């Protein structure tokens, strides 16, 4: 298939992002920039989504573009897993963009930059999910980070937003420097920057060198997915960032981190006879436990969700640990579980944040205490919140349950009973803080009982995410198939 066609989703997004910037300049000081721009961006995402689905049947080739046949170095792979993450990236961008319309109009006079930067962030996620070359992985990871720093500080007149941006930046830049040092050692150990070649040459490399470099690399990835002990940035960044961006960071950034982690673990490292399961299990346990325990005494909704998403990353790491142990035949279950978990997590978390955004627009606060008596002010939002929380805990009939089922199932399949047990225990702990919010919503007394009416767009976003969260559990077969396809192709290339 034509290389340009394989890249068509990325090309579409790039063009639309620059078009948004240009239109913003042309329409400056004009109502059109507020009314039409989000829909231009949304239209671009839809076109890119169609382009991605168009590529789907033809995917699986690794490619780099070369002017002549000599010296071709693979840069990206458009396989099914990459496309899976591209679909996720586009969905995230679309939902985040839509739920930001009202928020941005209310909080910032600049709109064009916001939609353009969100699109660019989505673009970087897409590159990241395809990258099979250390150069490209580093580049797209930094692309994502730099865009995220800017977006975190987007409300520049808000002290907290810019403070969050600075903290995020300082942690992130150091983490990527450390990760890069690991990359450079890996390059030295194998003499190549291409993951496949690295896998081949790794067999003859020195143990200490590989362990040192992979430890450094895992630190960098750990930062991106906010795994303990590299998570300190995330509560601050999540709390200070504009809420739609918090949603983006908690879903997009995390998904991208897992995309790279899976690819590196699957393509480059299996050839190396070192058991990563122990390290990954330790990180998973730490991440879940620290995330859940700290979430218990949070009073700010965004901060609480930050810790909750740290815990969610811990559950996903269980899947990866199960994948690396490879003691039985169906070892790809772990990855398949992670993919489905991420898919469910996307809708659930974006849904929660959509509710938080609506409430922040109306109440001007994200304090959990201010959610008191929400049931009387907006039953719809309250019910939605409960469903999303059920999904985050992993109670049927929700997508989160399906994800956890597969992930824990994979762990049990690989005889990682302790890991799965701690995972289940953690899920039980999480009930406490999620239902702390629910208790406020349903049982706390509040004098102000003016009804809260979300706008049309927000209603649509919440409805879509809610429906998807439920459908994933009730009619989950096609989605499980989707995730299985993506994971299988991946296993086949390896």
């Amino acid at each position: 298939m034509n290389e340009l066609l394989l890249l068509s989703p990325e090309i579409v997004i790039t063009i639309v992002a620059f078009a948004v910037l240009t239109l913003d300049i042309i329409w400056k000081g004009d109502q059109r920039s507020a009314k039409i721009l989000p829909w231009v961006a949304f239209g671009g995402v839809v076109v890119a989504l169609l382009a991605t689905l168009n590529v789907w049947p033809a995917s699986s080739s690794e490619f780099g573009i070369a002017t002549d046949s000599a010296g071709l170095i693979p840069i990206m792979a458009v396989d099914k897993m990459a496309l899976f993450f591209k679909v996720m990236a586009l969905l995230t961008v679309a939902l985040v963009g839509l739920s930001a319309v009202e928020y941005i109009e209310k909080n910032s006079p600049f709109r064009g930059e916001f939609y353009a930067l969100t699109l660019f962030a989505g673009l970087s996620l897409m590159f990241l999910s395809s990258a099979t070359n250390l150069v490209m992985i580093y580049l797209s990871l930094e692309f994502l980070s730099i865009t995220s720093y800017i977006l975190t500080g987007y409300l520049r007149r808000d002290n907290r937003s810019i403070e969050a941006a600075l903290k995020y930046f300082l942690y992130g830049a150091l983490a990527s420097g450390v990760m890069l040092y690991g990359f450079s050692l890996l390059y030295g150990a194998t003499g190549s920057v291409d993951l496949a070649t690295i896998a081949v040459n790794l067999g003859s490399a020195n143990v200490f060198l590989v362990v040192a470099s992979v430890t450094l690399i895992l630190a960098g990835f750990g930062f991106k997915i906010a795994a303990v002990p590299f998570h300190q940035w995330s509560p601050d960044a999540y709390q200070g960032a504009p809420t739609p961006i918090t949603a983006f960071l908690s879903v997009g950034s995390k998904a991208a981190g897992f995309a790279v982690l899976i690819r590196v673990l699957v393509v480059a490292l299996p050839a190396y006879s070192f058991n990563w399961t122990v390290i990954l299990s330790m990180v998973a346990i730490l991440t879940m436990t620290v995330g859940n325990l700290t979430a218990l005494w949070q009073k700010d909704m965004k901060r609480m969700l930050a810790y909750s998403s740290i815990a969610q990353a811990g559950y996903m790491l269980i899947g990866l640990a199960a994948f690396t142990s490879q003691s039985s035949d169906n070892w790809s279950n772990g990855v398949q579980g992670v993919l489905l978990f991420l898919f469910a997590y996307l809708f659930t978390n974006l849904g929660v944040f959509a509710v938080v955004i609506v409430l922040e627009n109306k109440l001007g606060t994200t304090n959990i205490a201010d959610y008191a008596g929400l049931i009387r002010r907006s039953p719809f939002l309250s019910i939605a919140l409960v469903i999303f929380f059920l999904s985050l805990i992993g109670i049927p009939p929700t997508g989160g349950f399906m994800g956890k089922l597969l992930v824990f199932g994979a762990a049990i399949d690989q005889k990682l009973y302790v890991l799965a047990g701690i995972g289940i225990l953690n899920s039980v702990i999480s009930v406490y803080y999620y239902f702390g919010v629910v208790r406020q919503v349903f049982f706390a007394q509040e004098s102000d009982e003016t009804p809260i009416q979300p706008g049309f767009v927000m209603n649509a976003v919440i409805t879509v995410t809610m429906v998807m969260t439920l459908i994933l559990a009730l009619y989950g077969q096609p989605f499980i198939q989707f995730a299985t396809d993506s994971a299988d192709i991946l296993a086949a290339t390896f």
Partner: protein
Amino acid sequence: MPFDPSQIPIVQIVFFVMTACAIGGAIGVVSSPNLFHSALYLVLSLFGVAGYYVLLSAGFLAVVQLMVYVGAIAILILFAIMFARRLMGQGENQNNQQWWLSLPIVMILFAVLVGVVNTVSWPVSGAEPTGDTVMELGHAFLGSYLIPFEVVSILLSVALIGGIFLAREKVEAEEA
């Protein structure tokens, strides 16, 4: 024994001079109590690293290092320090409370890294770089690495937009 001038280890001497610049500068960066001096030490260190690239027969990279790091990044940092003179907190301690904790951690890190790189038997290839590396770089950027090259260009535009957006003066609309 007569003195043989061809035995003068010129390359090694240059290496040690450059190391003095790079490492000495780096120590200055992290230890100077004056931020402006830190930035100038950074320039010294970057200069030493540029010298390394020349020794490693990567001349293009050396010039790029001077151009981008010294000519742009270091100047930008100096500019920011000058712009906000109070940033410097002149005379006061520039280290945070945890500095004594990070020192041993970093020492251990250094020891481990040095241990690792010195125990590995590197598969050094005796080959010389083929042909004109500048030409080869050009071919790489328009060949195999075309996509990263384009992505970098997008990234630079994003950084430009974001930098201007974040750092520009307050706009009237924001006051509303």
